[in-house]
């Protein structure tokens, strides 16, 4: 008998349903949030260090694109993560656990997440 058998585990060949996409984005947004928060705390620390530091941060926000982009990305991740988290709480109450309602819940989370990301963009720019 062969002991080192291959395993079919090529993720590119496996179709993910919308519930799985909602789930993996929940996790990805969590990671973005984790990294983004470290960045925000650093910016907060700098802005609180002195009047000069505050000036520096507000200048970075208004003039450097990627600086604003990171803030937007963190906010967008926060929005989706929050919505998907609420969906998890509802599922713990037994809501949205069927094939149809699970897909609907995922669709709603994704749409609300995108709307929140747009709102965050409008607010920032």
């Amino acid at each position, binding site marked *: 008998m062969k002991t080192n058998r291959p*395993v*079919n585990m090529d993720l590119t060949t496996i*179709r993910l349903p919308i519930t799985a996409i909602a789930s993996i984005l929940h996790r990805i947004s969590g990671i973005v949030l984790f990294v983004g928060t470290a960045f925000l705390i650093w910016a907060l620390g700098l802005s609180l260090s002195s009047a000069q530091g505050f000036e520096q941060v507000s200048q970075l926000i208004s003039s450097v694109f990627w600086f604003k982009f990171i803030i937007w990305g963190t906010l967008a991740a926060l929005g989706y993560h929050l919505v998907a988290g609420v969906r998890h709480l509802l599922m713990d109450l037994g809501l949205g656990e069927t094939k149809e309602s699970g897909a609907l819940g995922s669709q709603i989370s994704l749409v609300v997440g995108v709307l929140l990301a747009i709102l965050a963009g409008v607010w920032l720019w």
Partner: protein
Amino acid sequence: MSQLTVSLYRYNPESDQKPRMQEFQLDLPEGKDLMVLDVLALLKEQDTSITYRRSCREGVCGSDGMNISGKNGLACITSLSQVVKNNKLVLRPLPGLPVIRDLVVDMSLFYKQYERIQPYLINNSPVPSIERLQSPEDRAKLDGLYECILCACCSTSCPSFWWNPEKFVGPAGLLQAWRFLADSRDQATEERLAKLDDPFSVFRCRGIMNCVNVCPKGLNPTKAIGHIRSMLLKQAT
């Protein structure tokens, strides 16, 4: 006649170092919607070395679970019209389990998790002279649970099971765990829950719901897992 291209996962442990995809061309009869299993039978006429499991060919035995164009399902009850796009069909073995040959996987891990939940009635009261009776309401609680045929489509579509097949029971096993927890004749509720009360066995479920999406019998492991979680929670407080 319409043409179908079938891309088939091939692996022969005696001659292949690695698995590969092999393409076949097939002429399909007009006006008939074949099942994927019929296509495999036609391919086997072209190449007799093609290996797959099958038995009842009507969705009862659960032998021919496989990954059909990206989604797990039973070949015998999945019609081509459901899965073929651009005249192409891709057949791969169930993901996450060791491949013995072509579409045949080693299901040992899956069965091990099934065995773990003690899939039988535990009742130590003296055996009555007739059957152990149940009210129609209690019997109705088993609907949507007892129908599972253990085809492994759900567990092998579950990312939590892919990464932790040794520790996470998986959707199929947990559906059956709930089937016996929900049975009014079973007396081992506490014992069963105690065996599931750890961070992995039940709680590795992240509600991804791939299991619900693929189950050929339309069952709902996510819901069953939710019930078990509620029971574990109540017992803990």
